[in-house]
């Protein structure tokens, strides 16, 4: 597994590249900006971008999508079926995302937006703006906040404690750290 993380200018969001060492196919998780470091990383590791996974349709996670679509022949996946004004293939909880020999599972984590999704691979999960280190995504109602907490408990905290969490903003964490110490859960 090849892994790269990028702090972007767009609202200090994160973007991630996950590559299969065997087939050299690669996944991009969120793309808030057209950042040349992402292209450099792909080139440096001999990766071919095949898929873009959008955790939720906010500008700071989709702002670089037009650039990516111009430069690469990729399929865009999102929980909403659209991203950054473009069509995307809609993914739902339980769907598989295959990148070469890597297989990820889509996890429903609504609340920040109604169709926010996370994506879990063995050993790591991308949580977008649903779950951050020591925090959770902002919501517009108490019902949405409850929904977010419930889905994080049910789907993210069911992963092994050592599983890495890579959120849409700020530092990474682990399931164990967030389950035991995140002020929104304990």
């Amino acid at each position, binding site marked *: *597994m090849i892994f790269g993380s990028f702090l972007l200018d767009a609202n*200090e969001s994160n973007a991630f590249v996950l590559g299969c060492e065997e087939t050299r196919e690669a996944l991009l998780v969120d793309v808030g900006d057209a950042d040349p470091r992402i292209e450099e990383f792909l080139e440096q590791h001999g990766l071919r971008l095949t898929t873009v996974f959008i955790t939720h349709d906010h500008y700071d996670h989709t702002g670089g999508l037009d650039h990516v679509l111009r430069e690469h022949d990729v399929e865009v996946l999102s929980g909403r079926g659209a991203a950054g004004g473009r069509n995307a293939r809609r993914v739902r909880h339980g769907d598989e995302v295959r990148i070469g020999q890597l297989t990820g599972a889509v996890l429903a984590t609504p609340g920040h937006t109604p169709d926010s999704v996370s994506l879990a691979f063995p*050993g*790591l999960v991308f949580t977008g703006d649903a779950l951050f280190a*020591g925090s959770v995504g902002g919501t517009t109602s108490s019902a949405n906040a409850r929904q977010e907490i419930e889905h994080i408990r049910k789907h993210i905290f069911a992963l092994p404690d050592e599983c890495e969490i890579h959120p849409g903003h*700020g*530092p990474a964490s682990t399931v164990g*750290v967030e389950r035991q110490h995140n002020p929104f859960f*304990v």
Partner: protein
Amino acid sequence: MGSTHYHAEQCSAAGCDKNALTGAARCWEHLDDHGAFVASLDPQRLAGAWLVGVDLSGADLKGANLAGARLSGATLVSAELVEADLRRAFLDGADLRGANLFGANLEFAVLGGTDVSEAIFRGADLRRANLVGARGHHADFSDTDLYYARPGNADFEGANFSGANIMRTIFRRANLKDAILTGTTGAANFENANLEGARR
């Protein structure tokens, strides 16, 4: 652990499903000679290394390149990590009591659930560091850069933050009893934090 992006193979001990340490055939638990393994480590070649659970107490790791290394659950009591590169390293659950991290680079480092009591971070770069649930009684964070760091639910009783940049630092529900916050710069989030006896 299965598939991972670290420089690690599976532990060769029968029935063990953990990753082997980088540069070894086994995990820390199944390693025959801990001392020889520690002595074999080249501090400049530890970026991205899998070092889960290792005991590096008192080790001299000044200026070490540990960027992106996985040190979860490691014991680093009184380790010398002055000016070490720990960017994006995972130190969750590690024991760093009394360690010296003067001037270290810990940007994006994961220190959630660690014990950093009486550790020295003076002048360290802790921008966007994860300190969720960390314990750091009387730790020295003076003159650090804690921009957008996440010490939610941390227990930093008596810790020294004098002169630190705490712009956007999220101290949500942290225990800052008797902490020293004099000379800090920037607006932090102290929602539900305990500031009893803190000096500001």
